[in-house]
């Protein structure tokens, strides 16, 4: 890494996160002047962005699809709820919570890194056997992992309130908080992608056999990516928990998995810019569809309400992108300024 050439190339690439965060800042500034429903849509999109950036960190670098990352979202969200709710509420809702946690109440900001770390630790334990599997088996394994986490959280009433929704999580995630965490997610994802581990993984993504033959420890590097991505997604869960103040276990199951993967695929799963573009495009699309779902009156015609329409359209959009433009909207490209010669 000696000499100035690599350093200047590194700086050149640093424009990507700067531009992406500037884009989000612009969106937040616009939304902060808009109506409450728009603000909520933007906050929701920013939280999804945290999750998609984490998902991208794993999928984009390793080339292994994960259907299970929203499990880390659930882990981060519930951990954050356990740490920040008032002890009185906790005593009623969570009979199985250890005393240390049940009697304490941490500030939301302190709970954030702890919650994300909890998700990362779970990823470390589960990822150790999982990352040894071939790519496709690992994908199925992540799906099984999600099903297990949902089953455990959904049945352990003494810890999570079980199937009923959990109310009383402090509401703290506003536009600016969501922007800060989304920026953190973008910076982590970008830094990993530019790191040695990220570059080696991208090599193994393109040609696994050649990477192994060159002495790349793919198992270990995939595990590293899995753990860091779980940290980022756990952060997204934390932000989600403090956005609505309500948690339900099933909210972390198939729908959110599908939406976040759809965002990544539509934007382009090999580029960070693609991840961000995917979140923006799909969030906008879903917002329009949700309005249409509740029934629209177009002068003479009344379109009746169609629950499920937005999911059907999203699935079709995903299939079209996969057939017509398999690398997504952005392909391998990142935003940046043209290099000076």
């Amino acid at each position, binding site marked *: 890494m000696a000499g100035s050439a690599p350093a200047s190339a590194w700086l050149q690439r640093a424009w990507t996160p700067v531009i992406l965060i500037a884009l989000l800042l612009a969106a937040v500034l616009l939304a902060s002047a808009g109506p409450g429903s728009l603000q909520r849509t933007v906050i929701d999109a920013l939280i999804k962005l945290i999750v998609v950036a984490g998902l991208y960190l794993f999928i984009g670098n390793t080339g*292994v699809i994960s259907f299970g990352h929203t499990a880390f979202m659930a882990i981060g969200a519930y951990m954050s709820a356990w740490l920040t709710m008032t002890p009185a509420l906790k005593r009623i809702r969570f009979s199985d919570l250890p005393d240390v946690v049940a009697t304490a109440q941490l500030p939301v900001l302190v709970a954030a890194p702890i919650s994300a770390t909890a998700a990362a630790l779970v990823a470390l334990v589960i990822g150790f056997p999982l990352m040894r599997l071939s790519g496709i088996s690992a*994908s199925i394994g992540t799906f099984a992992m999600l099903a297990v986490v949902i089953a*455990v959280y959904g049945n352990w009433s003494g810890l999570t309130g079980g199937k009923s929704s959990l109310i009383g999580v402090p509401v703290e995630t506003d536009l600016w908080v969501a922007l800060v965490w989304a920026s953190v997610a973008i910076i982590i994802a970008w830094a990993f992608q530019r790191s040695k581990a990220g570059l080696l993984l991208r090599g193994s993504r393109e040609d696994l056999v050649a990477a192994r033959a060159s002495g790349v420890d793919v198992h270990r590097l995939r595990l590293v990516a899995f753990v860091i991505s779980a940290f980022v997604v756990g952060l997204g869960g934390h932000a989600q928990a403090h956005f609505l103040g309500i948690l339900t276990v099933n909210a972390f199951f198939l729908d959110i998995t599908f939406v976040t993967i759809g965002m990544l695929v539509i934007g382009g799963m090999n580029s960070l810019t693609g991840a961000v573009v995917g979140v923006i495009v799909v969030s906008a699309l879903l917002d329009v569809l949700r309005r249409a779902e509740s029934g629209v009156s177009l002068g003479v015609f009344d379109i009746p309400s169609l629950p499920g329409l937005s999911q059907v359209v*999203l699935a079709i959009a*995903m*299939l079209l992108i996969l057939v017509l433009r*398999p690398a997504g909207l952005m392909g391998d490209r990142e935003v940046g300024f043209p290099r000076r010669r």
Partner: protein
Amino acid sequence: MNNVLQAVVDAASVGGIYALMALGIGLIFGIVRLVNFAHGEFVMVGGYAVLLLAGAPTVAVIAATLIVVVVLALGVERIAFRPLRGAAMPTLLVGSFAVSYFIQHVVMMSYGGNTVGVDFMPKLSESIEFGGVSVPALQLVAIVVTVLLLAGLAYFLKATLFGIEMRAAAEDLRMARLLGVPTNLIIALAFAISGLLAAVVAVVYVAQIGVLTPRMGVQPALIGFVATVVGGMGSLLGAVVGGFLIGTITVVLQIILPLELRDFRDAFLFGSLFLILLVRPQGLIVVRAARERV
């Protein structure tokens, strides 16, 4: 002794259904390297077909369900999977996930997301006594159907021209095509068989649980996927072995787990499967075609 026999019958009937799921998934994976997430939705649509036809003679309901699901499988192959053929693994995975989600929500738009009850072949839930063991007739039916289907499929793959061509396509799709195997036809045939297996699972499953939701295919499909992974991706024998293994572990866990832990049975099930994969990351039966060629 009777308890042991009872457990064996349970394991055989549950494992048989899981094996049929795994086989339907493994058949497609073997040939086009596609993990078909929509396989669970084939089962789900089969369930709704039973609901739609409820009241008709049982034979007619079963026949119509088989036709509906086979046509659905062929349609999905033609419309969604054929354009994706030969695409990279992640594209195929996400594509089939999208198809699965699409079918779920089309059914949700038509029938709503709530649980619907359906009373199909109620006589089969009565028990039959034999050898001091009382077994629900449905379990025996499930075992007999599984055995017949497995034997039929084995005969088809080993002794008929289409079956041999199908195995050739699974071994090396491009080579098979070069040697004159009509791959489009063979792949469509594989989807038809896969749909047939899903329809049989649907009929037995609906008679067993008696309720329908648009999400009902997810759990059996997941079990089927995991069975193919544990058995060894790309091996049909492995898929069957994996299915029976998971069925056995499920029944054993149901017996040995204390009541308060029974809600977490699936967590223990998948946990034990992870342990198996820790020892054998490639699955129980490793086929040559599954290894990456250089």
